């Protein structure tokens, strides 16, 4: 039954009143009581003065909500909500997944006010460059204000995904206490909590299915460590489907872990930390042959075992295994144990395993179905050639450096890149660290792998030109944006002039994320990008000579972006002030290390916000007004 609300005058008033006016209909918040058959009685004193029958409105509302339930894509939902007020309301009622791309772009209250039926929340905090220690330790992204609002608004919340947020043990305790039906916790690159928080989750979330800690910093003072694995219920079966704690530095109680795995028949994904030895891994695998994703822990032996168990059969028994990771302290002699599962693998993460080319080859030659491969550059160009020869279905490749220092030469180079481009034609995503590169190799990749969506090349030597021609790397990256028509994410490096950015601005029409370091000559470089890339959402720049003129050339676009990061560039406070004045919906955070340089900006972190500047900024952050 519709409530009797006074009409609100809006721009919709101009609409012709002979058709049922959806815009004027006030949909009651508690529409669970609404008659879902679509029939309802005429409401006395109803808003509809011109068209007396509420019946078509009610039907349309119900139809609308039922239809909108099927919309899952965030983009589609956002578009639907802009159609008119009643679509806005219907969409708000039917949205179950809340995605907050920047925790400071909107206040928790605003979000919970708009959406009343949320079951799953994702919140992202710090910008990516915070991962590389470029931001003060206490910058922010505190989950506390969010957890209290969410606890109040969504007691039925099932899933929480947090990325780069500061989460405390107390926050985790609140989660454990507030959501009776809580099922899934995913913490990626978070910090601020330790084993006490994990213990609270383990103990109280009886319906927990997923607990995944990914590259989060979980370090506790030795005297504060808690045996969290023992806190899971000791009796009865659990609902656990995924347990990932490979980033937890402290050792776990193995007995408790083994008992837990034995009591978790639904467990499909298990990612162990480095404290779990090969022998212990073996025991766990025997308990859980149904695993599909396995993080192997240390993959080495702690002490000498008299009779080594048959590791290969344990692996062979896991017939559903498709994803392997871990290998944190790998003892290469144990590698043959995984041969039996290689043919089924779609994902292999060796990025913590210091294996050489021969060792990689022995494994890779079996991996015909591999789609995702993460390795260290210890495998050398030789290893990459082996990958190219076998992994015809490869979609994603990441090559990390063992040694992160600048050297004249490295173990992987343009040779490896070209080989991959020739062998893995379906490649969609690549992250490649190397010491040197050539334009020819990058151009080759642009032509051989037209499906590339993500191209991130990190030439560790800053300002390194083409190793053969000594030219800037402009042409290589130019070819990438020209030929890879689906490209949405790009990271550039090496010696680059404004020309590279001209290419990006001209051809990179789908680019959403761009990372720039030690590149460009003048403001023109940044201008090309800001004026040419309409889909740009995230722009992170460091140590590049872009200044005020360039910053001001993006005013037309900043409201469409999630954030802009510029550190160690040529910006001044005046320019930031100007932007802040011109675009009041932006928050400009200026972070300076050097108190002497009053005018020069060290770090500018700029983002749109519906609720103005935050109130939890630390001392070294100034917010431009």
């Amino acid at each position: 039954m519709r409530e009797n609300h006074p009409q609100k005058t809006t721009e919709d008033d101009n609409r012709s009143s002979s058709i049922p006016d959806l815009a004027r209909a006030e949909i009651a918040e508690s529409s669970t009581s609404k008659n879902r058959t679509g029939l309802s009685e005429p409401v006395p004193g109803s808003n509809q003065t011109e068209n007396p029958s509420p019946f078509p409105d009610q039907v349309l509302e119900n139809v609308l909500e039922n239809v909108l339930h099927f919309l899952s894509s965030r983009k589609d939902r956002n578009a639907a909500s802009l159609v008119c007020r009643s679509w806005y309301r219907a969409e708000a009622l039917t949205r179950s997944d809340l995605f907050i791309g920047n925790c400071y772009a909107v206040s928790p209250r605003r979000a919970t006010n708009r959406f009343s039926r949320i079951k799953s929340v994702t919140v992202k905090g710090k910008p990516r460059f915070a991962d590389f220690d470029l931001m003060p330790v206490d910058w922010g992204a505190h989950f506390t204000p969010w957890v209290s609002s969410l606890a109040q608004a969504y007691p039925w919340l099932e899933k929480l995904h947090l990325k780069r947020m500061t989460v405390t043990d107390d926050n985790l305790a609140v989660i454990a206490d507030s959501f009776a039906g809580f099922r899934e916790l995913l913490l990626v690159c978070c910090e601020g909590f330790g084993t006490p928080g994990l213990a609270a989750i383990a103990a109280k979330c009886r319906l927990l299915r997923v607990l995944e800690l990914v590259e989060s910093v979980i370090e506790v003072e030795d005297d504060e460590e808690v045996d969290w694995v023992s806190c899971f219920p000791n009796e009865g079966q659990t609902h656990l489907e995924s347990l990932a704690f490979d980033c937890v530095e402290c050792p776990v109680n193995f007995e408790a872990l083994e008992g837990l795995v034995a009591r978790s028949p639904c467990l499909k994904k298990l990612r162990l930390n480095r404290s779990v030895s090969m022998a212990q891994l073996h025991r766990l695998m025997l308990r859980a042959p149904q695993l599909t994703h396995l993080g192997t822990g240390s993959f080495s032996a702690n002490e000498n075992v008299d009779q080594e168990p048959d590791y290969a059969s344990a692996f062979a028994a896991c017939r559903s295994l498709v994803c392997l990771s871990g290998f944190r302290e790998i003892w290469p002699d144990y590698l043959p144990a995984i041969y039996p599962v290689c043919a089924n693998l779609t994902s292999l993460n060796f990025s913590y395993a210091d294996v050489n080319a021969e060792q990689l080859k022995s494994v890779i030659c079996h991996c015909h179905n591999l789609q995702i491969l993460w390795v260290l550059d210890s495998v050398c160009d030789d290893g990459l050639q082996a990958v190219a020869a076998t992994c015809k279905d490869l979609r994603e490749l990441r090559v990390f450096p063992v040694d992160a220092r600048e050297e004249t030469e490295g173990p992987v180079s343009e040779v490896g890149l070209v080989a991959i481009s020739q062998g893995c034609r379906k490649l969609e995503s690549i992250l490649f660290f190397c010491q040197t590169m050539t334009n020819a190799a990058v151009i080759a990749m642009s032509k051989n792998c037209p499906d590339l969506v993500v191209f991130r090349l990190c030439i560790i030597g800053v300002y390194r030109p083409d190793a053969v021609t000594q030219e800037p790397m402009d042409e290589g990256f130019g070819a990438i944006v020209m030929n890879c028509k689906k490209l949405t994410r790009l990271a550039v490096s090496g010696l680059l002039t404004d020309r590279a950015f001209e290419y990006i601005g001209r051809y990179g029409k789908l680019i959403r994320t761009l990372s720039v370091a030690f590149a460009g000559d003048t403001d023109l470089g940044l201008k090309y990008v800001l004026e040419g890339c309409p889909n740009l959402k995230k722009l992170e720049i460091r140590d590049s000579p872009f200044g005020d003129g360039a910053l001001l050339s993006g005013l037309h676009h900043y409201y469409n972006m999630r954030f802009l990061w510029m550190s160690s560039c040529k910006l001044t406070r005046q320019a930031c002030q100007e932007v802040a004045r011109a675009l009041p919906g932006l928050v400009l955070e200026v972070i300076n290390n050097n108190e002497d340089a009053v005018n020069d900006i060290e770090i500018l972190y700029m983002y749109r916000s519906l609720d103005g500047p935050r109130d939890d900024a630390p001392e070294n952050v100034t917010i431009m007004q």
Partner: protein
Amino acid sequence: MENSMGRHETEMNFKATELRLGLPGVDEMEKVPSNYSVLRSNKRSSPETSEVESINKTNLNTSNTICHDQDNAPPSKAQVVGWPPIRSYRKNSLQQKKGEEVGMYVKVSMAGAPYLRKIDLKVYKSYSELLKALENMFKCTFGEYSEREGYNGSEFAPTYEDKDGDWMLVGDVPWEMFMSSCKRLRVMKGSEAKGLGCF
């Protein structure tokens, strides 16, 4: 390592242990930017490649001399902050695995911050390097060190717990002694650190 130890002892000169932020051998206190990003000042206007390469190398060498005058060890490259872009979690994990070069990881905490960091002491060759890194990590400044007054006047002071469980001011003992006795580090408020020091 032995060379430097010998040098310290034979010099019997407090200047050798005096903590300064300037280039060793220079008398005035030069203010050195706390940000390691030495290449920041290299804002080029034209891409003369050969010029750039040599400027690049010069800058790196300049910063090396700040750190290595006292030791005769070959200069290692100055680390640009946050470059290459690899998460410290991954860097630390890999460092710890290296058999030959076992890192010396100590926890670093800061008064008021609810979490810890870990750093590898072996990466640093002197107090000035270490302090610069800490200053940058926690975005604070320690000011000038003097034996009598410690880090008097600055808001924060770096301290460490040694093998005996005593809390000392970073800089009180010769570098090598510090390296072998430091168990963990803590950035304390200046007022907290007043009582420390071995003199």
